[in-house]
């Protein structure tokens, strides 16, 4: 390996790290607010990437049908639940929230799909389409078991990944897609050191998003409510924060993050319906390095995962995923060494 190659690999690694950083932030966010390990994160990113690919090709994105089906199921479930308890007055609101809003997000895409559109419009349509998916799925899957043990939630989350990838295959088909790079050309950062503009865009976008994320958390009231829920759910409830609405907000935020991840990754990697799990799991490796709670450490973990993946793919392309997962071993050893068994008092409920 020469220095040139190492440099190129490092650039790739940083680009990958940008992706894992965003995904890792999303995972840590969901986990801290809802206790759900959100395995299907990558699947949503895949949906986003495939939607963008369909829109670019001037085809009607099946995402619209997916969202409509999910919204219909959720709405029926909510309405039936309300009627059963005799809360007829709440039916219109439920219909508006669970059917109206998601369909509203589909309207622009339905109207504009099939035409030659500027890339930024395609991206906006994609994000709008992806936005309702996680809140709807979470309402269907996690809401009824919100008080179950974390392990039940984890099982449900993993099963949800298989559900999502099955739906992905059903709606998008088995072929893989790659989207147009958003920026072409390269920038010479140092004499003889060219970096493609797309990579710069990925890293820049990730940095900006992560920054916004940080600001939203630290500076806004909503962000503080989310943090309060993460620290102490009962305490947050006592001061008037509704866990159900913080959860809904979190899922919207995660949907958007996953949407961005899909859009950023799609020009450089061919995405298939089942590419999501590996992306999600690598982000988990990063999040585990951050102890599933620290955002800065997660960023560091993302960098480690991105770099290792890039160099591993040079060494052995087929086994690069195994090599990245093996990063878990030192990460867990360090965790295990410093763990204080703080969860001793938490008695696991009988499932």
């Amino acid at each position: 390996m020469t220095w040139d190659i190492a440099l190129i690999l490092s650039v790739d690694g940083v680009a990958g790290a940008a992706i894992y950083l965003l995904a890792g932030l999303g995972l840590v966010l969901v986990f801290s607010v809802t206790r759900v390990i959100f395995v299907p994160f990558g699947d949503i990113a895949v949906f986003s990437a495939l939607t963008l690919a369909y829109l670019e090709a001037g085809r009607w994105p099946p995402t619209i049908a997916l969202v409509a089906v999910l919204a219909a199921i959720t709405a029926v479930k909510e309405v039936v639940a309300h009627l059963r308890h005799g809360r007829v007055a709440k039916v219109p609101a439920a219909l508006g929230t669970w059917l109206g809003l998601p369909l509203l997000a589909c309207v622009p895409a339905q109207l504009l799909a099939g035409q030659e559109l500027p890339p930024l419009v395609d991206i906006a349509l994609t994000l709008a389409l992806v936005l309702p998916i996680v809140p709807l799925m979470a309402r269907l899957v996690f809401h009824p078991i919100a008080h179950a043990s974390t392990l039940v939630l984890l099982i449900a989350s993993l099963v949800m990944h298989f559900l999502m990838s099955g739906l992905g295959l059903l709606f998008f088909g088995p072929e893989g897609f790659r989207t147009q790079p958003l920026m072409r050309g390269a920038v010479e950062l140092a004499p003889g050191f060219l970096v493609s503009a797309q990579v710069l865009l990925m890293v820049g976008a990730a940095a900006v998003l992560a920054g916004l994320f940080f600001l939203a958390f630290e500076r806004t009231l909503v962000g503080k409510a989310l943090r309060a829920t993460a620290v102490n759910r009962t305490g947050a409830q006592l001061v008037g924060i509704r866990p159900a609405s913080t959860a809904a907000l979190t899922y919207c935020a995660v949907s958007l993050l996953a949407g961005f991840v899909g859009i950023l990754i799609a020009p450089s990697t061919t995405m298939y319906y089942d590419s999501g799990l590996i992306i999600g799991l690598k982000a988990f490796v990063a999040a585990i390095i951050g102890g599933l709670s620290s955002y800065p450490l997660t960023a560091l973990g993302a960098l480690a995962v991105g770099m290792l993946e890039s160099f591993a793919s040079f060494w052995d392309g087929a086994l690069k995923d195994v090599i990245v997962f093996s990063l878990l071993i030192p990460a867990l050893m360090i965790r295990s060494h410093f763990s204080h068994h703080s969860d001793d008092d938490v008695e696991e409920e009988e499932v």
Partner: protein
Amino acid sequence: MTSTLKRRLGLLVVMAALASVPLLFGSFTVSLFNDIGMATLVVLGLVLLSGVAGITSFGHAAFVGIAAYATAWLNTQFALSPWLALPCALAVTALCAVLIGALTLRLGGHYLPLSTIAWGLSVPLLFGNLTMLGRHSGISDIAPLSVAGRDLMSAEAAFYVVWIMVGLVGLFCHHLLNSRMGRAIRAVRGGDVLLSSVGANSFHVRLMLFVFSAVLAALSGWLYAHVNRFVSPAPFSLHAGIDYMFMMVVGGMGQLVGAVAGATIVLALKNVLQDVLPLVSQHAAQIQAVVFAALFILLLQNARGGVLSLVSRVLPRRPVSPAAASTEPASEPLERRTMPTKGAALLSVDAVVKRFKGLVAVNEVGFEVRAGEMVGLIGPNGAGKSTMFNLITGTLGLTAGRVEFLGEDITRRSQREIALMGMGRTFQHVKLRPNMSVLDNVALGAHARGRCGMLRGGLALDREEERRIYDEARRQIARIGLTGQELEAAGSMPLGTQRLIEIARALASDPLLLILDEPAAGLRKPEKTALAELLRRLREEGVTIMIVEHDMDFVMKLVDRLVVMNFGTKLFDGAPQEARADKGVRAAYLGDAA
């Protein structure tokens, strides 16, 4: 007809029905039964690991794969006979499980399940990329099993091997659950502190259990390789791991019989869907995955007890192990510790300090407990009593000072080591296993007085020791006056009774010092009276007792000596009557104006 007889008869009928399967059905159905049997082996391990002990693994399909590939490789490369390859395959898998378990089982919460996902993905990827293992095309032409020189080529022949193994493993698991280690396994969900308090090593119990369940998966993998005579990476994917988990949940998680039920239902359903869906849609395979995932989620939401919870009313009640059922006394009781002479110093606490960051919870407190006396440690809320309790029992580490028990320095010893020396404790928030019987809960207390491990337990070679343990448990239950209610679930008892059961559990460990954490908290008046009577009786029998309490009334009338704490410091040490007269104590309890 007694229920044991009914069960035996039922079992015979099931066995006869199973034995006739190859005679009644075609090869296709028999193969399906073989698949069910092999899956059952894996799910039995998962029932113990996840259902009973609450440790989730999504990666057991990888263990099946490791064993299958190991035996396939040994068989095709070195022509090693399947029976000789069996121990190798089991050993390789067990080794992998030890490594993974040692890394992850110490960590609480999600680290284990998440890393099982990672290795569940990695192992099949490795299989698919190693030239030595035939890459994605796998290994074929594996020798079939042979018994007495005859090759078992057909599905019908393999059927009996598979199901005899299922029967033997099921029996082993059943015995294991009802053994000394089984009680510890059933108590794993109660937390490390509970297990340490009875002298069990929680990490060791979980690691052994993890390895055991991996070995069962390996057995299934070995069978798979020699029954199908072909291995490839696909059947050992993460997806298969989820399927095993699905079978366990369908079957009812904590139930051994549920393993068979779950495997049967899931595999039969898969088979039916494979036949029906192509008639409905051209996307049959995709729909099947979606249908299965949706069913699993519905099951988690609506019937986490699985099918067994739906039919459990019809099934006869879970039998009690023979050792627990017999009231016939054992030939000799469990060994007892030698009691220290009355009046000798048992516990001495010297200038103990505990700081939580800036807060000094306990500040230079010292006192002694002598053999045969009953000492009360009291103080208003926030006085540092519970911290003191945790420092003595080793649940917390102390910042400075020294604690001696039986003349030995226990300042740096772990909770478990201290429990093993003969310090029995109860918990402020009762830590009984609600679904275990009163008898089993108390027998758990005698854990450290037994020797039999998982192997002897599973093979039912522990009967004599079990009888002695249950004898002891029954004696302690009689001591707290609950004779006749041994087989009730502990969780169904009122709080006062549960506190008494905790005392019985502590007594079953034959403690030299019994230390009680707020035993009267939350009790009604008659319950307090009953508790006080029990404690008096125990003192008369020579048990040394230390009570940490904030109910002054309760302790005053009971103890020989009082230690009063307030704001982390010791206020008073002496006879209860003198405490009443002490100005400092009165100020602490009633305010300065008094």
